């Protein structure tokens, strides 16, 4: 098949209608797509009937539009009896605006291997549970793609959501193009495009989007043959960078970190990429000496590492780097003032043209704790305990502060905050965090010789500490509770597994109640 318009197939004298289900989410224009298909059919002497489920499903929920088409030729003046809802196992064409919706068409029996051409976008609109999870809660796209592939005669797919975004149009237009490109309906490309023109709204962007959808659907699936069903993991590191990190870590760092890179070259191969990122991060956060302290810390654990693939070292390298570069006011200000951020916002997000101006306004809500954190220890402690100062700061900040970073003063203020990095070492929080890090790694070292899997899990517990303000405080409380539990479960043969379960509980509920309940339950104490 080529990207050229398919020849118009001879209209078959169909004895049964072409059946078509469109699975979309409210507000995506599934109704517009159904209307285009009806117009396309009716204008070319076909009967068409479409139905939808109206009402609340329009408000972002999953919804199904259903269309049946039958040629007028051979009807002898009779009007056909067309279906008002899809029959599982009897749907010729399924169109899904999103990958989980494609999965839904499989689950509901609309897409079946013997009959269905499934035209689906691989783009994801995450469902609520995926989004509200406190960590990774996303469904594996590869599994959805495999199911769609196994449940259709042809699975024509593309990132139609992104195409809609890039062409400044809506996904319904891209999908309409994909239907045309898939050559599943007996109409020519021109006839499809005429249906869009006849609609009269946003014709130009719709036609652009249509063209892209057409091209993707009509192209031979060359990529799929090479990589099989599973798409590349977007989180996997670039293989080139990975090789460089393993063979020559020094090539990934600048001149000031060469000696640290040389230390990494002596450490386990599997951990080197993470270690390289770790030294760059800690050096950027504080100074080169801090990168050395980082390597000292990881090294103290690495010498005890007997885990498979040196998981202990790798994960310790990851979480120690993250913890040592905890997000304080200085760090946040540093991120906010970088040039690359300004570029990203202007080009990728605002998509501003040269004639447009872009302004950025930050929503900050500094708490007394966050201000005292960055002050020298004694001053910070005084501030934290001073009722007068607390009240004063509360009055200024309790409604939040909006700073226009693109203004003269706004930028200058954030810039000077970002430049306070030299005094960080003497700050209240710095001392606290270093002590906590050492206590945590001390626990890791204590258990590593006895139970390296448990040591790995202790390391990974750091991921429950996240966020800012109250979220951070809750996370830290959960983390401390987990650390307290370690000695109590250490003798259990399944200690590693149990700690992992507790960590999952900590990440399952924001209030920490699930974790508290589990820790308080008799099962933990009795073991």
């Amino acid at each position: 098949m080529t990207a050229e318009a398919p020849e118009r197939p001879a209209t078959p004298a169909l004895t049964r209608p072409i059946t078509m289900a469109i699975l979309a989410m409210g507000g995506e224009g599934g109704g517009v797509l159904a209307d285009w298909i009806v117009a396309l059919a009716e204008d070319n002497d076909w009967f068409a009937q479409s139905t939808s489920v109206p009402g609340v499903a329009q408000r972002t929920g999953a919804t199904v539009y259903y269309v049946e088409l039958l040629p007028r030729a051979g009807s002898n003046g009779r009007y056909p009896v067309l279906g008002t809802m899809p029959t599982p196992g009897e749907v010729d064409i399924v169109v899904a605006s999103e990958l989980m919706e494609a999965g839904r068409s499989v689950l509901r029996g609309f897409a079946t291997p013997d009959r269905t051409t499934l035209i689906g976008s691989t783009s994801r609109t995450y469902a609520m549970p995926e989004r509200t999870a406190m960590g990774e809660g996303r469904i594996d796209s590869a599994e959805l793609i495999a199911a769609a592939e196994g449940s259709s005669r042809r699975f024509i797919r593309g990132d139609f959501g992104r195409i809609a975004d890039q062409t400044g149009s809506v996904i319904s237009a891209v999908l309409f193009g994909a239907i045309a490109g898939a050559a599943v309906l007996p109409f020519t490309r021109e006839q499809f495009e005429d249906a869009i023109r006849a609609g009269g709204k946003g014709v130009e962007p719709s036609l652009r989007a249509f063209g892209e959808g057409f091209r993707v659907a009509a192209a031979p699936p060359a990529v799929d043959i090479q990589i099989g069903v599973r798409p590349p993991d977007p989180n996997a590191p670039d293989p080139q960078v990975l090789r460089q990190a393993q063979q020559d870590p020094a090539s990934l760092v600048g001149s000031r970190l060469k000696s640290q890179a040389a230390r990494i070259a002596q450490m386990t191969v599997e951990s080197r990429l993470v270690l390289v990122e770790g030294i760059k991060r800690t050096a950027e956060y504080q100074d080169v000496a801090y990168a050395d302290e980082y390597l000292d810390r990881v090294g103290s654990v690495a010498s005890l590492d007997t885990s498979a693939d040196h998981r202990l070292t790798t994960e310790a390298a990851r979480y120690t780097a993250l913890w040592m570069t905890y997000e304080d006011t200085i760090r946040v200000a540093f991120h906010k003032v970088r040039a690359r951020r300004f570029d990203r916002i202007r080009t990728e997000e605002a998509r501003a043209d040269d004639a447009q101006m872009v302004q950025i306004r930050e929503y900050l809500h500094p708490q007394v704790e966050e201000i005292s954190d960055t002050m020298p220890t004694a001053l910070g402690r005084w501030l934290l305990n001073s009722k007068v100062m607390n009240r004063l700061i509360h009055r200024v900040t309790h409604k939040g502060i909006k700073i226009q970073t693109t203004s003269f003063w706004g930028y200058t203020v954030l810039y000077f905050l970002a430049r306070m990095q030299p005094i960080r070492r003497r700050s209240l929080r710095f001392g606290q965090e270093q002590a906590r890090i050492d206590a945590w790694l001390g626990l890791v070292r204590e258990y590593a010789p006895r139970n390296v899997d448990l040591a790995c899990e202790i390391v990974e517990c750091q991921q429950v500490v996240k966020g800012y303000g109250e979220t951070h405080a809750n996370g830290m409380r959960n983390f401390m509770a987990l650390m307290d539990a370690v000695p109590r479960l250490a003798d259990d043969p399944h200690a590693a597994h149990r700690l992992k379960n507790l960590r999952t509980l900590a990440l399952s509920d924001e209030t920490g109640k699930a974790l508290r309940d589990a820790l308080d339950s008799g099962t933990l104490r009795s073991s």
Partner: protein
Amino acid sequence: MAERSFAAEVQELRLGAGEEFRGEGILAVTKALLQSGVAYVGGYQGAPISHLMDVLGDAQDILSELGIYFENSASEATAGAMLGASVHYPLRGAVTFKSTVGFNVASDALANLASGGVRGGALVIIGEDYGEGSSIMQERTHAFAMKSQMWLLDPRPNLTAIVDMVEKGFELSEASNTPVILELRLRSCHLHGSFIAKDNRRPSMTVREAVENPERDLSRIVLPPMNFAHEQEKLNKRWPAAVKYIKDNQLNEFVKEKDADFGIILQGGLFNNVNRALELLGLSDAFGDSQVPLYIMNVTYPVVDDEVVRFCEGKRAVLLVEEGQPDYIEQNIQAILRRNDATAKLHGKDLLPVAGEYTPAAVTKGVHAFIAKYAPHLIADRQAPVVTLPHDDPRSPFAPRIKPELVQGRPPGFCTGCPERPIFAALTLAQREVGEHYVSADIGCHLFSINPPFNIGATTMGYGLGSAAASALNGSGAMSRPIAVMGDGGFWHNGLTSGVGNAVFNENDQLLVIVDNNYSAATGGQDVLSSKGESRNRSLKHPIEKAVRGVGVKWARTMTNTFKVDEMRDLFKEALTTPEKGPKVIVAQSECTLNRMRREKPAMAKAIKDGKRVVRERFGVDPDTCTGDHSCIRISGCPSLTITDNPDPLRKDPIATVTSSCVGCGLCGENAHAAALCPSFYRTEIISNPTRWDRTKQWFRTRWIGFLQRGIERRLEGISA
């Protein structure tokens, strides 16, 4: 102004005799009303017949030309009572609403109407909200038809049949002095099809002519002793008259009546599904040419005894395809067959599901089982439809091909930019401080709060009944007062009296939150009394706070911008702790974003085109500072606030991100402030056609900022390669 405009489509209503009408079922019904010489129309919006009201609203000019009166009724009860105009006058009237909920509300009026009977044709067009896509309790309108004795029409889902049934419905009503219900199933309302139009007809009498010539017939008034006479008249006069009309005009259809010694009786509305089942069994075709005898009940109440007996004569068995429960028609036909000593065996819910929607899958399985029992030779040489196969058969469409947990539910929720979301974000934050409260929800968009991420709301007892549903939980001396939520739609529907008035009268100590978004938003954005727009023919701008104070509420506050989350939160806290007695009412006001964007988007595009300075706002999340804890999502749930891969090579968890669908409502920023969340949120202002002053400022700023930024990058030299 409704969410969807039918201004273009209503031109189809002007089509004359012989022209082909193409469009939605709802529009076809409107056209049928005009063709029937209707004198007045009313109703209350609600899926699936909201658009019927919207079409009528947009067709005001055509209605006036024909002398037809149209009203947006205050409730279904109002609509039902409106049909009182047909009691004494030969006026044809039609009202419409969603059922069974609308019927529940209207039933007082309709029961009185049905008792006294009507002179002019009275048609109640209901959208039967049953099955997939429905948002209400699953019940049948059939029960109302039986209890009040109103005839129930359930035409085949095709526009010609539906249009025909509207006209016949008026005639049936007049022939039997009985109001008639026209049932449209959920999907029939939004079914696109065509039919051949007739000319529109002016009503033979207009409402104006009627009101100027008052009439009164004592025998039609529901008062003793006439109420007893009505009951007799219903059975002895009106019923036989209806049966005669139905038979004479062949409203029910017989197909291949004597071609086999078995057959199928079905509700007209299920015809397409039954035909599809027969097609899959090779016993019919795409044009409905069934080989199996069919008795299609386009009138499902009353059941015509003679016709049933006639159809069953000489048959070993019949299958009744009757959707929903209880199985009223099955019981009725059983009785008819027994009374007439008929020998045909009746199947129904023994072969079909006892409850739930009769989807093509359900019907195909039932019909297949019936044919396999009585005429197996007809289907012997073909493969059974795959949908009838057991799920463990690899050919079954339900053979396990995907792990169910990969497909998560996706219920409807608040739209991007919805002004109701910040209300629940603020309530969430307030409850964190003053503790959890019992929350009684109502009907309307606001009850999406029941789902994650808010998980707020324990009951929904009916439209406008949010406050009433919390009235018993008014335990005096309780430490925590109940919270009730109500939309502006529900408030004006009946909440003002059943809820607010009740709470004042009984000194109820509740917090009532009235969500005032300018429209009856959940039903499609229709105007209500408190709407703030301009309307040619409706009286708007009646403030809710004034209304509640009018019935005696002392503590009432109107919050004119729901997006001020911290102020909302503080107001909730105050309302939940104030010693003031009686109901505490907060009117939370902000315009429905769907309606707002529909107005503002084109205006903004035009202003940019005209060279005017336009600022567009959207929010963003800094990927460098977001730690992937998603607490912002848990107090928002906005579709535009989602997650994406973490660009940080060390972090694994996905980070929050704002997609390009963001409308810049500001909630992300307000939440970040009110909940003291995190510093990752920022607002981007994109200025089109900046002024000279804008550009001058920009010139200086860019230089200063660029100078400092180069300093930062210099300091970082030597760290990365």
